[in-house]
């Protein structure tokens, strides 16, 4: 089992490294695939593992984009002047300035989003169920509107970042690996986190928060920390996306509530909530479906996507992993032995009577 598992990990890792060179024409799509995997996994941290369905995680994506852009530009120029000139060419970045901006920008975006998650979470985690979903969605929509009226960061026109200093293809590979490394680190992190007492505590919050409170679990603390961890990674990929897009604007690309904001939820539902692999498998299924419909059913792609969402939500709520869990429980090491249960029940009650 463990040898199989190691082999699987090595194979996936080898594919991850080789992919942009084997399929050079799909560099952007492969990067986007990693983006989907990451946002799905981070969404599942609160939605699947902790039972808090946020529709506002896109807030951290958009905020991450802007924070990364402001840091990368602000390290070299005055941000207000730069955006005032609307990318008017007089502003040049050296290689060193680009890469420092990239690293500090993406990490800064992660840290900033983690801190914001604490603040927003403190207010919104008082809400439960659908109210939490709508409350967080409201935050994301409001943020998009606020930023599009904020001239210092370019307002509705958006903001333009420096271009990758090498050639274009090299730039695509660079962005791909930025996403891929973040994704691999996130996977390793979650694989560890879900096995700790912390992981068990957020599962307890999902299954019965009132019971968890009555048992003295620090529910608010765990909710805030989980969301902050999730926001950290979303902020980072938001930052990477900013450098990938180079030029972006607030409503359609940064705070894109109806696109990526919903896609990440659909990915998790497709793959299976509350599992480590579900969001990853779901993101791959979703991305393949999306690319196929965009290429072969152009004009109908949104209809197909809408249909996929409806079918998933109505008929396939537990996703692929949830379905496998029910049909093949032994794969997950679950014991649901009804007959054995009855027998041991008899044994137990006769044991009690003997007392």
């Amino acid at each position, binding site marked *: 089992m463990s040898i199989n598992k190691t082999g699987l990990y090595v194979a996936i890792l080898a594919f991850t490294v080789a992919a942009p060179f084997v399929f050079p024409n799909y560099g952007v799509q492969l990067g986007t695939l990693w983006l989907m995997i990451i946002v799905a996994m981070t969404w599942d941290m609160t939605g699947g593992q902790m039972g808090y369905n946020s529709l506002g995680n896109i807030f951290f994506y958009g905020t991450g984009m802007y924070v990364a852009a402001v840091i990368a530009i602000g390290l070299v120029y005055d941000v207000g002047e730069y955006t005032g000139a609307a990318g008017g060419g007089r502003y040049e970045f050296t290689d060193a300035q680009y890469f420092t901006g990239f690293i500090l920008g993406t990490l800064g975006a992660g840290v900033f989003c983690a801190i914001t998650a604490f603040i927003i979470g403190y207010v919104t985690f008082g809400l439960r169920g659908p109210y939490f979903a709508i409350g967080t969605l409201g935050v994301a929509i409001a943020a998009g509107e606020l930023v599009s009226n904020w001239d210092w960061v370019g307002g509705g026109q958006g903001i333009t970042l420096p271009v990758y200093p090498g050639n274009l293809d090299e730039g695509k590979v660079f962005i791909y690996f930025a996403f891929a490394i973040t994704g691999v680190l996130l996977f390793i992190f979650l694989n560890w986190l879900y096995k*700790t007492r912390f992981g068990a505590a957020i599962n307890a919050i999902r*299954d*019965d928060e009132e019971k968890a409170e009555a*048992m003295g679990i620090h529910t608010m603390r765990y909710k805030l920390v989980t969301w902050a961890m999730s926001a950290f990674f979303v902020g980072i990929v938001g930052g990477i996306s900013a450098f990938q897009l180079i030029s972006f604007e607030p409503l359609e690309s940064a705070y894109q509530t109806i696109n990526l904001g919903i896609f990440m939820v659909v990915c998790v539902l497709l793959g299976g909530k509350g599992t480590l692999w579900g969001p990853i498998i779901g993101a791959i299924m979703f991305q393949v479906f999306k690319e196929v419909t965009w290429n072969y059913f152009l004009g109908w792609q949104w209809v197909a996507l809408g249909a996929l969402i409806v079918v998933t939500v109505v008929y396939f709520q537990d996703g692929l992993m949830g379905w496998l869990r029910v049909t093949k429980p032994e794969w997950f090491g679950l014991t649901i032995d009804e007959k054995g*249960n009855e027998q041991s*029940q008899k044994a137990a009650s006769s044991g009690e009577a003997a007392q």
Partner: protein
Amino acid sequence: MSIIDVSNVSKSYGGVKANSDVSITVEKGGITGLIGPNGSGKTTLFNSIVGYHPIDSGSIKYEGQEISHMQVPEIARLGLLRTFQQTRIYGAMDCVENMLISLPHRKMSLWDTLRSNTAEDRERAGHLLEFVGLYEKRHLRSGSLSFGQQKLLEFAMALMNEPTVLLLDEPTAGINPTLINGLIDRLKRANSEFGITLFIIEHNMRVIMNMADTIYCLAHGELLASGSSDDVQNDQRVIDAYLGAH
């Protein structure tokens, strides 16, 4: 020495006076019982103590500290724990996972929680499951257990949490008679071996008379009688309350 002091507590829901001017003392290290007909305000009093709702007037002290204004998790973290009349367990997880989640988080820092459970934790979980007679079922989904077994699991989870005081809301309700004797025995042992103070709501007179040092009887939200099991059993007002005389 008293550990919980309830003095002159009143609580109304709209026009219904669920508790009026109730005063109760729970002795440290003992077993205290709370009885009364349906609707007499027993669970309301429990909920007031553990912080589910604010009280209208009076005071509730735990180890001398006023707790009537505190929230549920804060009170639970003082070591004052309750079980529910309708059992509450994490149904999708197996029994061992239920036990491990019940480790006393109040004694852990955030860094402690970022560790995996130790072999000792698992051993203790196994030991306590054995204590309540669920060891054979430890890897079964807890939601698939019978109601009585779920109550035993909830009791074991409470013990795992190392409480100072345990408030039990009808621990024997819905449990079959053969299991009840085993449960009484285990409750007594939890009290004597682990030193946990018990405060128990119970309808089964045989059970509560058998266990409690002191019994309080509520009727219509008011304290009707209190004393040793003999005193309460022979109190005409208690008999009337249960048989429906006014």
